[in-house]
């Protein structure tokens, strides 16, 4: 499964980078979304993929019985998702404002304006 995930993440990264290399700011935004998904999945995969063993401890037990997925990686990804959303929200509003003022999303044309 790791192999498949690795291919998937590679594709996500490739798509994200390609989109971020475009001149349109909208596409840059799309690239950003793809990139944050790719990064989250990367951490998730590298921490180890385990089926059906969430890091939840049964009632009354002291610790998990018989293996568990890595809770630390999950906590990291959870915050990363929310932060990614924050960055995206900021970028969306920025794009919105920039477009409102400059009337273009071409970053070549934007560069000249202050």
């Amino acid at each position, binding site marked *: *499964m*790791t*192999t*498949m*995930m*690795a291919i998937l*993440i*590679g*594709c996500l*990264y*490739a*798509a994200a*980078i*390609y989109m971020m*290399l*475009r001149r*349109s700011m*909208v*596409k840059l935004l799309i690239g950003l*979304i*793809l990139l944050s998904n790719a990064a*989250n*999945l990367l951490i*998730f*995969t590298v921490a*180890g993929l*385990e*089926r059906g063993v*969430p*890091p*939840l401890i049964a*009632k009354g*037990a*002291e*610790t*998990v019985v018989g293996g*568990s*997925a*890595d*809770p*630390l990686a999950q*906590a990291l*990804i*959870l*915050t990363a998702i*929310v*932060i990614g*959303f924050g960055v*995206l*929200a*900021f970028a969306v*509003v920025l*794009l*919105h*404002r920039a*477009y*409102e003022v400059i009337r273009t*999303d*071409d970053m*070549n044309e934007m560069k000249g304006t202050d």
Partner: protein
Amino acid sequence: MLNVVLSIFLLACIAPHLYRLLGKHTGLVLALLPATLFIYFASQLSAVSQGQPLLQSWPWFPGLGIQLSFMLDGLSLLFALLITGIGTFILCYAGQYLQGHPALGRFFLFLLSFMGAMLGLVLSDNLITLFVFWELTTVSSFMLIGFNHEDSESRQKAHQGLMVTVLGGLALMTGLIMLGMAAGSYQLSDVLQQDLTGHSLYLPMLILILLGAFTKSAQTPFHFWLPNAMAAPTPVSAYLHSATMVKAGVYLLARLQPSLGGSEVWLLTLSAVGALTMLTGIFLASRATGIKKVLAYSTVMALGTLTMLLGLGTEKAALAAVTFLLAHALYKGALFMIAGILDHEAGIKDFEKASGLRKLMPRTTLVAVVAALSLAGVIPLFGFVGKELLLEAVLSGSQWQLGLTAATVLANIFVVLVAALLAIKPWFGQALPTPKPAHDPGWQMLAGPAVLATLGLIFGLLPMLPDQYLLNAAATAVYGQPISGYLALWHGINLPLMLSLGSLVLGLLLFRFWQPWRKLTAVVETLSKAGPEAGYNKLMAALVSFAAWQTRVLQNGYLRNYLLTTMATVVLLVGWAMLRLEHFELNWQFSDVRVQEAVIFLVLLTTIISAVVLNSFLGVVALLGALGFAVALIYVFFSAVDVGITQVLVETITVLLLVLVLYRLPEFRRLSSTAHRARDALIAIASGTVITLLILLVTASRSMEGIAWYFLEKSVPEGYGRNVVNVILVDFRALDTLGEIFVLALVAIGVYAMVHLRTGAKPVTNADKRLTAEQKRQQSVKGEL
């Protein structure tokens, strides 16, 4: 000794406030501290002269072996006494010299900071501490040279001094680190026990340390910054640029002489550069007419002489160096302060306009003459003792004794000229009208030069006084072994005396023909256009244009160019590293894939590809939503319930957000050429491939146990929670989470500010935009009708 240094910095911090409180008496009150410290250091004289250096140490960065350690031996004590002693007079002097200056409080702050830094520098027993104080003197000197910062010339000269000394400082840092590595310790007292001339790092570290010392002590070809530093107020010139800071380089050379000195390179470089500096300095001094300029150039000459003596490295040279250093500090400090008095009380800055002030300023004249006689090396002043020793040291020196002696005698002739200028020109002869009514200054300004000049006389008559208590110990520290020589006023009629007398006569003759001499040598004015200062200016201009060029090329303002460069570098470096791996095993395995996972995989792949090629924003938003939900499913499949839920919710809100701005945004356009697209696609695919390989590599070779078990075990007993992910978020790593919600808050404030707080010119365009939007709406309504 830590307290000594700290007390000065502390006083520096409160000096501006004290000034507000005490007004014009601040200088006198502040001078109490260096005076007290002078007494403290003086009380150490007898112990140190018996050869017991005082060592004190406090751990600073114990992990790096950096200690705040101090050492007081003969050499440090000599400097410490000069710094506190002259500092006391300078503070009194400055209080009156700059009386009523609006920024006097700030001036005291800088001056005291400098004093603290300089003391720290000469007392440090640790190479790193020494370097830190070294740089602090540079910075405070910059502040003081540029004190009149409204004046652009003053700023430019401060900048020049800073650049030259900081570049040297950078070299010095590297050199000191090498020195520490070579000696195996950063403690000076350890370093000095070793002779490092045979070490493999000797040459590079010597070159770097010499660069630092030469720039600081204004050796040719770096001598040009020192006369320019005269833009500072005169008390600063008297203190920093004659008596203390510029001697920091000489101090460093003297300090390190026991470990680094004695080699052929040391001898050659130091005596050659020193002699060259000596001649350049005094020649330029003989041509200048500004009083401070003449003094500055003659200081360059003195620094060259000291360097030359340290290069010789003999017992006599060590003794001569410390004696010359003390004598120079005494008369040069006094003469600088007198130059300030001439400016302050008579408005005279130039020798050509000064004449016949003897009657109007009798006391100043007396002090000036005594100090200048010491400079000229006339018996029975201390300068004479210094000069005799200098000549003796040069004569008994190495294989180049003839050349060095000739240079020294030549320099001495010009020194006599400069001394005669200072002793005769402004005071005797016909009285000229002065810009200000000339009169003697108040005692605060005259006390310093008077005491220094008198000391020059006393030490000349009783040379055993400084010798026994101070100079012998200082020379011992420089030489590394006990010194047998001693100071005396009268050595009998010998070669040095004859040379001294000869230079005196020739110098006076030259004084008689000063103006013709200046005309004769006017040709150097044109030469100086190609001198080191011109080189410095060219270098700075080249640096600026290089910076502009590289900013244009590298920071061109296009995000995608940065990204392209970054990704290309990553691909190349990581790819190269992977190719070099010995065990490059990839674990290709598809057998453990379940059906539902394979379906998700295919869905995701299709989504990604369509998102790249699709040409409609709405379509892409829908695809991104699908992608997000599919990723959430992956999280859920692989035991990350909380992450999955969060992903679903965030994805929902993201789509919502995109839809909100959707209709405002333009249609997708094809902006890049096909060639660009191909290039970008290539880089993107290469990056993706590298990342895929990297993941496979990393997951196949996990060698360390993670720290997950810790959280799994401690969650219930210590966090009282059964959802380990949540316990990590709100308990174990709560500080991280706090930081995260701060970021979210920043996003909220940023977004709010972007839309609601509009400034300046924007409202107009917005109104326009709104208007056009309104018109469009109306048109569309019409169209619908």
